């Protein structure tokens, strides 16, 4: 249940070669990146389209508007592996097929979240969806860097607990 490594995210150099493709992530040769160059994920086992779709799927499963894409990218990064690549290819193909059935080109190019969520509902009982969703519970919410966005303060022993730091400071009751 440990945190997912952030390796591969600091490769801003890759961005110079990036070609724009969609609002969320930019897919280039062997990586996807934020349009504003804030982060990038290198992919070597799954395709750029698959990783970008996984990232969008992660956002749509657990959407937090104040949580940046880079945290979702960290959460799905581990799917870029030899062991996962077949499951990812099949899962994303099924997701794109479901998008087509719903009248869209593919999942990524479906513009509205509500439409994408409706597509996800069609596949939510599949092992692929459940694996991605289950993995996000720790992959996203157990990133210490995400906690401050929710106000959660984490470890407190080293600061002497809250006895002098507001354990009873509520002022609106």
């Amino acid at each position: 249940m440990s945190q997912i490594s952030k390796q591969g995210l600091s490769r801003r150099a890759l961005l110079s070669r990036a070609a724009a493709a969609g609002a969320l992530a930019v897919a280039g040769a062997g990586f996807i990146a934020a349009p504003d160059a804030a982060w990038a994920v290198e992919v070597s086992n799954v395709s750029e389209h698959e990783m970008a779709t996984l990232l969008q799927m992660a956002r749509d499963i657990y959407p937090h508007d104040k949580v940046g894409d880079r945290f979702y990218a960290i959460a799905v990064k581990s799917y870029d592996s030899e062991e996962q690549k077949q499951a990812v290819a099949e899962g994303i193909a099924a997701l794109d097929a479901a998008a087509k059935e719903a009248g869209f080109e593919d999942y990524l190019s479906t513009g509205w979240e509500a439409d994408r969520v409706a597509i996800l509902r069609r596949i939510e009982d599949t092992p692929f969806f459940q694996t991605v969703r289950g993995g996000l519970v720790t992959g996203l919410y157990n990133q210490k860097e995400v906690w401050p966005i929710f106000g959660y303060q984490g470890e407190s022993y080293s600061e002497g607990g809250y006895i002098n730091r507001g354990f009873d400071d509520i002022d609106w009751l």
Partner: protein
Amino acid sequence: MAEAAKFELGDDSVVVIVGTGAGGGVLANELAQKGVKVVALEAGGRYLPEDYVNDEWESFGQLAWTDPRTTSGDWRVAKDFSGLPAWIVKAVGGTSIHWAGASLRFQDHEWRARTTYGEVEGASLLDWPLDAAEMAPWYDKAEAKLGVTGVGGRPRLPGNNNYLVFEKGAKALGYQEVHTGNMAINSVEYDDRMSCQQTGFCFQGCKWGAKWSSAYTDIPRGEATGNLEVRDHAHVARILHDDSGKVTGVEYFDKDGNLQMQKARIVCVAGNSFESPRLLLNSASSMFPDGLANSSGQVGRNYMRHTTGSVYATFERPVRMWRGTTMAGIIRDEAKHDPSRGFVGGYELETLALGLPFMAAFLDPGAWGREFTTALDSYENMAGMWIVGEDMPQADNRVTLSDAEDSFGLKVANVNFSDHPNDVAMRNHAYKQGVAIYDAVGATRTLPTPPYPSTHNLGTNRMSEKPEDGVVDRNGRAHDVANLFVSDGSQFTTGAAENPTLTIVALAIRQADHIAKEMAAGNI
């Protein structure tokens, strides 16, 4: 301090205790203090306050029992956490490392559940073969050992933010018995342990030692007598017996995975309510074909887990419930038996806080999308409470041996559980009250949350007057085997509305007294 004892595997004068949690750890120390030689075998490793981590998942990885188990029945845990029916510890000190510290006595009538509630269809209710008057002095000793607040002249803890919200709502609804609880957490220095620093990671092991755990109190004190040897990473596989039907020792896998045999004069089983019946069932022999001490067929049956659930609520402004004690206060008004509410027995409401990582996992397991995530977006403005009520014992809610095996090749426990209609009615009542409490303080949204994997596990080797109704007698001694005892929460005849550990500890202190006397008299 005396060297911790070392006993020979062939020493058949020792008492062997399986498990070192709230029950086993206390029993080990109490016996050692009386001069009885004890070998305590613990499947997990040793961790002390300096080892505990203020991080929910990392701590889970360090302490939790994650050996395989299987589940069945219609409880939601079987779907959402099919391999994790319980959230309990595998370590020296057992689940007393995890626990929140709420330490309540049973109410008098709860010792007589069958008599008080009458016949309840589908329930296998029974009166305890013990009563409140008989238990009172043992509760006194248990409260003094644990340093329980609000009794014995010990002040209560201060209330944190989560408590203050809860208290305000409770008072608005007219509840009378509302306070910061009876907690095995020091409000002032006590018994060489410091007072609570309101750190807020009580479930992850108290790094200050302010909360009682057998891991750093009873166990080292027992060892200091020179009468107690604790072997960690010692997983007991089977209890052995002779032709006369008395137990003679146990087989266990040691640190290196080698099978060892420890002889014993007496064996006490305290592995918590899944592992204790599993061990008895795995100890079947030609003489005890259905499992040791199981002539009644009751081993593993009547599994109880308390009727639980949580209510979280969000507010316009911050609460920051994670600051301070995890279980910071209680409402006791609903704990009474009042069948006009549509169910027998009662429930307690206790504050509870989870960190963000556990909140994400347990708020609504399996849920996704904005209905779920917008609740988490308000995490900072959230308050929470936990419901703990008496559930009905049912014969088919039971631990049996599964076809699955653990890494030692031992059959694992399958836990079958379905709610009784009384449990459902009680939970729904409690949800309604919990929601009303938070609404009274201006909640913007309330979230009645399903039960977590079990933290209270009770009843699978229950105590009974008559041998055909249960597994052990009023002293926790097996009806069928004269020198075999059960020393944990699996002895519970019924669960009562209260968190169980104070009663487990009181029973262990009482049992130590009984065993020492019987040994001295030459009766066992």
